[in-house]
């Protein structure tokens, strides 16, 4: 039975076709490049939070680690200069290693205690990146970063369309990887740990090791996303580019998209990043004040409304679709179930139903 199309396929088909309908305008490609990068980071978080149920508030730190690892391995002011592809792969490994190191002592922590540890790790990472100037160049940012080459052909930074397809391709590979994992023995172990750690332990699934694999895998995917984020800018930007707000954005992506759903992550990234990069920009342009002397009034500048619009949109989306835009059960044949709310919440749910 095939009641509906696979949303992942739809996403990629639409994304692959889009450039044919639109001209080569900068904004369009930029926005989508960002969407693809954040979708990748979102996939990483989806493994950790969506599949395995560990709330992670420090995803930006793993992006930062990926970006800086990539930059240090490839930029011409460092001795390594391993090139784009090796750099990308190695940054993934370093991300996994970092995930392992932070996860090893802390993954035994329950729920929100782990959340705050990851948030703290985010802050520590920022401080370390800022303070270890000898290695990270502090707030300078590391630039320039290399372009990818495919069989002697180099994709230049300004070749937006090629970048678009390259990122789409990498995202596609990542989606395949994550989908396979999800259906593998490991992936099913993740889901069972999320649903009931105690029961799955009884069934012979070691909770700590399973969590650890999820954490390291997710971190690796996010680190690759971070490396691409930097490669797109040809610079790591400031350490502040990977602050708590970025972690929050990624978290919003997977929750708005649908926890534990790969298709949801893709759609969530398109919605959240697209809102930032396209909708809010267009709104600002639309209401942009060209008249003179209006800037002393705080309400007059459309830019001053962005937080408000973004916040309202978040509340509205979870209000209308609390289980996310594409909940996991719509994903097709997957065995993944929507994450059950924590026990105390199901209490509240029952209560709501009874009322």
């Amino acid at each position, binding site marked *: 039975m095939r009641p509906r199309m696979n949303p992942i396929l739809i996403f990629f088909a639409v994304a692959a076709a889009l450039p044919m309908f639109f001209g080569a*305008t*900068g904004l369009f490609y930029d926005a989508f490049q960002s969407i693809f990068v954040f979708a990748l980071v979102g996939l990483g978080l989806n493994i950790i939070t969506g599949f395995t149920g560990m709330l992670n508030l420090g995803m930006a730190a793993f992006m930062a680690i990926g970006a800086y690892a990539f930059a240090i391995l490839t930029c011409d002011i460092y001795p390594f200069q391993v090139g784009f592809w090796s750099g990308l792969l190695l940054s993934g490994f370093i991300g996994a290693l970092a995930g392992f190191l932070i996860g090893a002592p802390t993954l035994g922590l329950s729920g929100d205690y782990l959340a705050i540890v990851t948030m703290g790790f985010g802050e520590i990472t920022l401080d370390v990146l800022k303070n270890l100037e000898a290695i990270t160049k*502090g*707030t300078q940012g590391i630039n*320039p970063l290399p372009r990818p080459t495919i069989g002697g052909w180099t994709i230049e930074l300004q070749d937006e369309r090629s970048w678009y397809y390259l990122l789409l391709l990498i995202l596609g590979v990542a989606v395949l990887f994550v989908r396979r994992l999800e259906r593998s023995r490991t992936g099913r172990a993740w889901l069972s740990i999320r649903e009931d750690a105690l029961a799955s332990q009884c069934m012979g699934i070691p909770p700590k090791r399973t969590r650890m694999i999820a954490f390291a895998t997710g971190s690796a995917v996010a680190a690759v996303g971070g490396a691409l984020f930097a490669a797109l*800018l040809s610079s790591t930007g400031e350490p502040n580019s990977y602050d708590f707000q970025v972690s929050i954005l990624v978290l919003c992506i997977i929750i708005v998209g649908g926890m534990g759903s790969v298709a949801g992550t893709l759609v969530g990234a398109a919605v959240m990043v697209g809102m930032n990069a396209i909708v809010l920009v267009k709104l600002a342009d639309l209401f942009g004040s060209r008249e003179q002397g209006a800037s002393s009034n705080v309400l007059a*500048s459309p830019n001053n409304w962005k937080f408000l619009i973004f916040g309202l949109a978040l509340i509205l989306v979870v209000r209308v679709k609390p289980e996310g835009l594409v909940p996991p059960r719509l994903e097709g044949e997957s065995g993944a179930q929507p994450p059950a709310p924590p026990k105390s919440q199901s209490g509240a749910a029952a209560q709501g139903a009874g009322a």
Partner: protein
Amino acid sequence: MTTLSTIVAACVSLVIAASSSAQNGTIKIVSSLPRTGSANAQTGTIVNGIKMAIAEVGGKIDGYEIAYEDWDDASPQRGNWDPTVEAQNANKAVTDATIVGYIGTFNSGAAKISMPELNRAGLVMISPANTYSGLTKPGLGEANEPAIYRPSGKISYFRVVPTDDLQGAVAAEFVAASGAKRVFVLHDRELYGKGIAEVFERRAKELGMDVVAVEGIDTKAANYKSLAQKVKFSKSDAAFFGGTTQTNAGQVAKDLRSAGFAGMLVVPDGCCEEAFIQAAGAKNLEGNTFVTFGGLPPAQLTGRGAQFRDGYRKMYNADPEAYAVYGYECGRVLLDAIRRAATKDRAGVLQAVAQTKDFDGALGTWSFDANGDTTNRVMSINAVKDGKFVFVKRAGDTAVEGAGKVSAGGSVAPADAQAR
């Protein structure tokens, strides 16, 4: 050459004006500044300055309509400039062929992102606020700077503000002249604040002062009371804070004073705005607090500068902030270049901007040097009295030689940014 093109341009415009009143088309200028969040206070005044410069020419040059767009390079999540958005702005500008000038950025870090992109497209970029030396001056930043920002080998980035290496030195000399022996250096760990604090530290040591410590603050902290006590207990005569109003300079000043630190406090031009006084509380700044500024404060401006000040008051019903004049100057120098440009396209405008010489600007008469920096090196030191900035003295004209940090500039090696 310049005059010739001016004459040609003038003739062309005459012919056009005579032949018909029709438009030649639209030339677009954009600015890319953080307009969401805390920097909005300063960027608002910069945008006002740009708008004023455009209004002064009636929004038209040689029959071309000048369109201006005020772009935001911040995002709501960050509440500050966002590298992704800045890259988007640069791309957007590059792909819109009617855009001939890009005014920005506010943050030097943001400039690092958009400079190579715009340079490759030959689109002129003029910054009203970037002061990080490495963007233009070889030998002051990383080894590969500034070549990496000039992949085309040509210079397309200009700035109307004096750089950190000048201002930090001026501040150190001012502190030394006050007789201070021990100085405590604080900074905000950001590109601008830390850069200027490092120059200050170097110059202070050269001048024989004892730099007690250099501390990078946490800009989001609620207060700096414990750090302020450390400064007080260190028996320093003076303190320097490299940072801006956004990076909590007001709180630093406030806590230093409330801890009982009575020594001299010097802060750079990132604090030269009303918002700093408002944040720190006028009483806390009264007396021994000084603000360096690259240029003269509005009240001290003469000639064109005075005209700017009065015009701004008339147009916006408020006194211009220190930064407004930079925005105005960016706008004017760009419009002047458009007027002089032989062809009203990117290449023509870029060439005309690069040729800017002895420009009769609001900041004085100045030119762009071979690196794209302003030759204007006039600085001022200001104090706060009755809640207003008051001019103390002019500085900087001589400090440059003393600092010995400015390289001659000269030729720029064509960079191969594609390398690796």
